């Protein structure tokens, strides 16, 4: 036995290898030196040296969301570990599978306020799906395998494994993944067939149905998007997607109503409000979706498919809650639908589509065109037009107006090509996430659609991007404001722009050069296409500084706490100006 013993660091790396890990985003320090020493001696796993541990987390998220695999992070104890907390919370909120390995002081020092000690399992308990403190080298391999299993199974999420330094040097035995089964955590995949039948019956009787679909479909994998597409086309029902769900159903399909929610389309939100049957598929009734709960889709029968039982009946009570993986459930649902030859009232459905088409005719995403200033929407439309025919394009975003405009104007036909921080809304997410995506897809065009305020939050990662020659494109819609916050101040706080103007911004072109990237700038609408083309054609990292209209607001908008039929459609729409007439007839 003693012969095949290894030290903890070797066991760790062997376990990672067995888990199929090919890249780690990390940053070294005293507590993880033994692990880095083993990393030095091997070349099965690539290590990407970030410039801040938060960057490692978001990079791992981008890697995970764009590949469907688990992202892996390695950081040192204390400050290295605490720097991951925002990223862990982000991954928890958006259900992203990440395993974060944190160094820890030696076991005999734990609890002694040792140098660079932080109670990271304590700190991260509420912001991880689960966490482990490994105290015994012989339990190490099992815990690592469990961590990967927990991170990727059921509703995915971040898992921390805390690794005391002495455990990483102690000798012990390796446990292969084939010998590890989890005692308690066995998420349900198949949905209850009787509930699926009931759901199909309700849908078959619908006159004004809607399918409200979310990030759970992306979590389930590309097959679930396929099945969803099949199901939508089979039923002929309208389909709307959440911010997290974009790409789960092709945006180019006529049955697609666009995104719903606070900045969703007029047609999607009024259809949600007026429907008689709502089917929520891998979506979690977030408050950005529901608005004022008491007025949320008041007259509909609701069906909810979700792998996490706690998502069902959390915010909105539903008539049929089906616990299971969307892929499995949709597969069964399609079978039942076909077997029962479900045929909804076609006349009613046609009427419903007629109303929807009237709402569509409002063309809610239109904006005032300008020949003088670059409208941010225009810049994004051009970006979309000039990149849509390229093979593999991945979009990440920061957080703010630009994020919502990107969600509205960039159209996704495939899952896993859109990475954004939805639940936590973490400014500074987009650049490191793009870096992670690019590491996973070296040949792809990866664009971070950024705000100038957000991108500065993790701008240090430009240095990582330079080191690994990652051709990431940073497309900044530079309005010199924290635009999203300024918009709220304009609409709700009498235009008192407290602390939202971005004084002393860097010159982004020079900044790009300082990071060995290419800097480009557009200040007039006529320059936008050229800058985009040059950006695409450059085989190095680019920062494109697009100077956009500083005062543009993001519409449509449902002010927080309002109902879906109280949407603001554009400038001049006062909070009380309801779009309601058309919407109201359905209420």
């Amino acid at each position, binding site marked *: 036995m003693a012969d095949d013993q290894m030290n903890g660091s070797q066991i760790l790396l062997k376990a990672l290898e067995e888990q199929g890990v090919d890249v780690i985003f990390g940053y070294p320090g005293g507590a993880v030196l033994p692990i880095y020493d083993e990393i030095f001696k091997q070349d099965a796993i690539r290590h990407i040296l970030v410039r801040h541990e938060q960057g490692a987390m978001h990079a791992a998220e981008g890697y995970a969301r764009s590949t469907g695999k688990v992202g892996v992070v390695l950081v040192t104890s204390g400050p290295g570990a605490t720097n991951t907390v925002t990223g862990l919370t982000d991954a928890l909120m958006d259900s992203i599978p990440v395993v974060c390995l944190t160094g820890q002081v030696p076991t005999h020092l734990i609890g002694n306020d040792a140098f660079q000690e932080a109670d990271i*399992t*304590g700190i991260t*308990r*509420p912001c991880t*799906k*689960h*966490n482990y*403190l490994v105290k015994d080298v012989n339990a190490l391999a099992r815990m690592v395998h469990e961590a990967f299993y*927990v991170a990727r199974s059921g509703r995915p999420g971040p898992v921390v494994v805390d690794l005391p330094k002495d455990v990483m040097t102690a000798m012990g035995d390796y446990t292969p993944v084939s010998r590890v089964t989890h*005692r*308690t*955590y066995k998420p349900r995949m198949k949905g209850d067939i009787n509930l699926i039948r009931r759901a199909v019956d309700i849908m078959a009787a619908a006159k004004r149905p809607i399918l409200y679909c979310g990030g759970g479909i992306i979590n389930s994998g590309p097959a679930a998007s396929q099945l969803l597409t099949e199901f939508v086309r089979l039923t002929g029902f309208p389909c709307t997607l959440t911010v997290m769900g974009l790409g789960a159903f092709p945006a180019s399909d006529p049955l697609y109503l666009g995104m719903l929610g606070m900045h969703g389309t007029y047609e999607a939100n009024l259809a949600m409000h007026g429907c008689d049957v709502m089917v929520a598929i891998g979506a979690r009734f977030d408050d950005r979706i529901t608005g004022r*709960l*008491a007025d949320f889709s008041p007259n509909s029968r609701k069906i909810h498919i979700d792998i*996490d*039982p*706690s998502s*069902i*009946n*959390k915010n909105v*009570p539903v008539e049929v809650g089906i616990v299971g993986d969307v892929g499995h459930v949709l597969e069964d649902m399609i079978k039942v639908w076909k077997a029962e030859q479900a045929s909804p009232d076609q006349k009613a459905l046609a009427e419903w589509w007629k109303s929807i088409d009237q709402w569509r005719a409002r063309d809610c995403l239109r904006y005032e065109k300008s020949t003088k200033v670059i409208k941010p929407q225009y810049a994004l439309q051009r970006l979309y037009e000039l990149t849509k025919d390229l093979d593999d394009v991945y979009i990440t975003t920061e957080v703010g107006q630009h994020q919502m405009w990107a969600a509205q104007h960039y159209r996704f036909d495939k899952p896993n090509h859109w990475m954004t921080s939805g639940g936590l809304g973490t400014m500074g997410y987009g650049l490191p996430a793009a870096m992670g995506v690019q590491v996973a897809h070296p040949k792809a065009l990866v664009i971070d659609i950024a705000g100038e305020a957000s991108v500065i939050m993790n701008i240090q990662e430009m240095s990582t991007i330079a080191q690994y020659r990652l051709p990431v494109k940073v497309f900044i819609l530079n309005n010199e404001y924290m635009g999203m916050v300024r918009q709220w101040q304009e609409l709700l706080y009498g235009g008192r722009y407290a602390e939202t103007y971005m004084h002393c911004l860097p010159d982004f072109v020079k900044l790009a050069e300082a990071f060995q990237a290419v800097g480009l700038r557009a200040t007039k609408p006529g320059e936008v296409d050229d800058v985009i083309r040059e950006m695409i054609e450059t085989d190095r990292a680019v920062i494109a500084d697009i100077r956009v209209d500083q005062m543009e607001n993001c519409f449509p908008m449902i002010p927080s706490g309002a109902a879906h039929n109280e949407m603001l459609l554009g400038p001049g729409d006062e909070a009380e100006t309801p779009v309601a007439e058309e919407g109201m007839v359905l209420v």
Partner: protein
Amino acid sequence: MTTQTETEIQTTIAVLVDNEPGVLARVIGLFSGRGYNIESLTVAEVNTQEGLSRITIVTSGTPMVIEQIKAQLERLVPVHKVCDLTMDGAYVDRELALVKVKSTGEARVESLRVAEIFRARVVDSTSESFVFEIVGDTGKLNAFINLMEPLGLVDVSRTGVAAIARGSRPL
């Protein structure tokens, strides 16, 4: 939104968990983090061989919140089983209290008399004090402690509720 305005109910939940470090912190953190009530919480290992502990939680909330609490508990990775004893039929619940009463003369005699009625046992005594041990449901313990208040009550220690379903079926 009828369910949201529904009145609160009290419920007793039994949770079987892996007896591993931090598991109680996870459960308590869940309740505080999500703003749920804990009226009573007890925990002890119940199966040494398999390393299982049983947590009994008395909580209250609207039916929708109670459903959330159970779903959230089930979501914790080291949780084996969550059982709503209040929902699932008849169950027995018991609590133990140690009640210290300091008094002399008539009050001292009266405290003994009350203890007898409640079947509380004297487990310690000095010339001016008793410690009573009383077992029963929460209501009985409350009643006893209330009666002891004017008779020189100085200290109370309670275990919290342990509960188990009636009948032959295990959790």
